[in-house]
């Protein structure tokens, strides 16, 4: 069964943002990793790339298919989770602990367009 974590902002396409100060850690939800199955590759942007809310910034590949990653918020990539390059299956082990990119948020008001955990739970049902 999928688990849900409170305190995060969720998008309809199953990405989350964990906000720490001016920064946001973006990853995929536990519900999303369940639906994908074995993750075998994570296609990530590079540091200093700009991501735009609602636009694709990479992909998560399971054995069977590639799923686009859609940025829930806009910002500049300041870090990518390099551990996922060698161990993409970390997303299956703990999707919330293993964020994909860290961005410097360019517009915090975009967070208002995202769901809290209760709304996201309802979205997944």
């Amino acid at each position, binding site marked *: 069964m999928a688990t849900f974590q409170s305190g995060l902002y969720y998008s309809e396409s199953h990405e989350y943002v964990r906000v720490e100060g001016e920064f946001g850690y973006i990853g995929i939800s536990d519900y999303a990793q369940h639906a994908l*199955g*074995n993750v*075998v*590759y994570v*296609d990530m942007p590079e540091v200093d790339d700009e991501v735009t809310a609602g636009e*694709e910034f990479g*992909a998560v*590949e*399971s*054995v*069977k*298919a*590639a799923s686009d990653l859609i940025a829930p918020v806009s910002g500049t990539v300041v870090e990518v989770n390099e551990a996922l*390059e060698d161990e993409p299956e970390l997303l299956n082990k703990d999707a919330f602990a293993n964020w994909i990119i860290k961005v410097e948020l360019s517009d915090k008001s975009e967070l208002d367009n995202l769901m809290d955990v209760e709304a996201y739970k309802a979205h997944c049902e």
Partner: protein
Amino acid sequence: MEKKTCLYDRHVALGALMSPFGGFIMPIQYSNITDEHNAVRQHCGVFDVSHMGEVRITGPDAERYVQHIFTNDVAGAPIGQIYYGMMCYPDGGTVDDLLVYKMGDNDFFLVINAANIDKDVAWMQEHTEGFDIVLDHQSEYYGQLAVQGPEAEAVVEEVLGLPCKELKFYTAKVAPLSSPEGDTDLSSTANKATEAPSGAVGGAAAPIIISRTGYTGEDGFEIYGSHAFTQQCWDKLIESGRCKPCGLGCRDTLRFEVGLPLYGDELSADISPVMAGLSIFVKLDKEEFIGKEALAEQKANGVARRLVGIELADKAIPRHGYAVLTPEGEPVGEVTTGYHCLSVDKSVCMALVKTEHAKLGTELLVQIRKKTFPGVVVKKKFYDKHYKK
């Protein structure tokens, strides 16, 4: 509305992820693709392949008819022999790839792809003129299981009680067997498709066909029988715990790794067997068959595009339809199937590329989303088959 196989309820009860495939709603995976893939490579897995289509050709001209529509050569075959080959259009494009079982003199059992059943049967019927045959479409009658993996022989013998040890690669028998030799008259299974199944596993009246064939690159068997028989076999196999239920997800990764084509990816109306590197199954020394002239011309003069394997240096995964480019960026083809190959831990694909870029060792790029990734042309077999011949 997709059709259901006779095992649909069992798949749902096992918690399978169900998805449309070839006009059927089929199990893609039960646990996960990697575990199921490895079960087949290392032990044993069972697949519901009841979606496959079956056609029986009998009558005085049955052999001549099969020779006419089929690229391989079945002339003088011993009873029980199975042939892989294609039906082609006059221009050499592929109608479908299929197995032809010789069940008796002028008695053949054809196994076709689920997605192509309607098209294939129509194609066959369009070409019966001048042949004294009975074409019996039996897809509705037969269920089919594929038991695959190094332990398949023991599982089929011990769990299902179906003798199969003596079966050679690409041969078939009816079960129960009246004789351990391969000369059993398999014709007894002809035209039984409308009869009620006997109910008992291996019951004498049930037309059961077992062959040493598969689509995984491992030893294994394919077992055709009534829906009731198929359900009983499935239950026994699952209850035994010796055979993992496997979905179409790993069926695709398994066949891909050993370079077996899938109609729709590596073969199509636009991709001839010669382009796909399957000329060995096209017998141009046969007197006549549909597509022969075009395929002979392709063989003699070469084809514009060929199917190749490409191995990537990176872990990014090429998928069906992605563009293949030269190092200078000129588009020269596209990916037909690609995976991060589970048995060898590499990202590889099969791709149809312009022939001048098809030589082994040629450097190419594959466009994966916004980036291109360097690759090199390799043999389109990424893992060695382990058949028991």
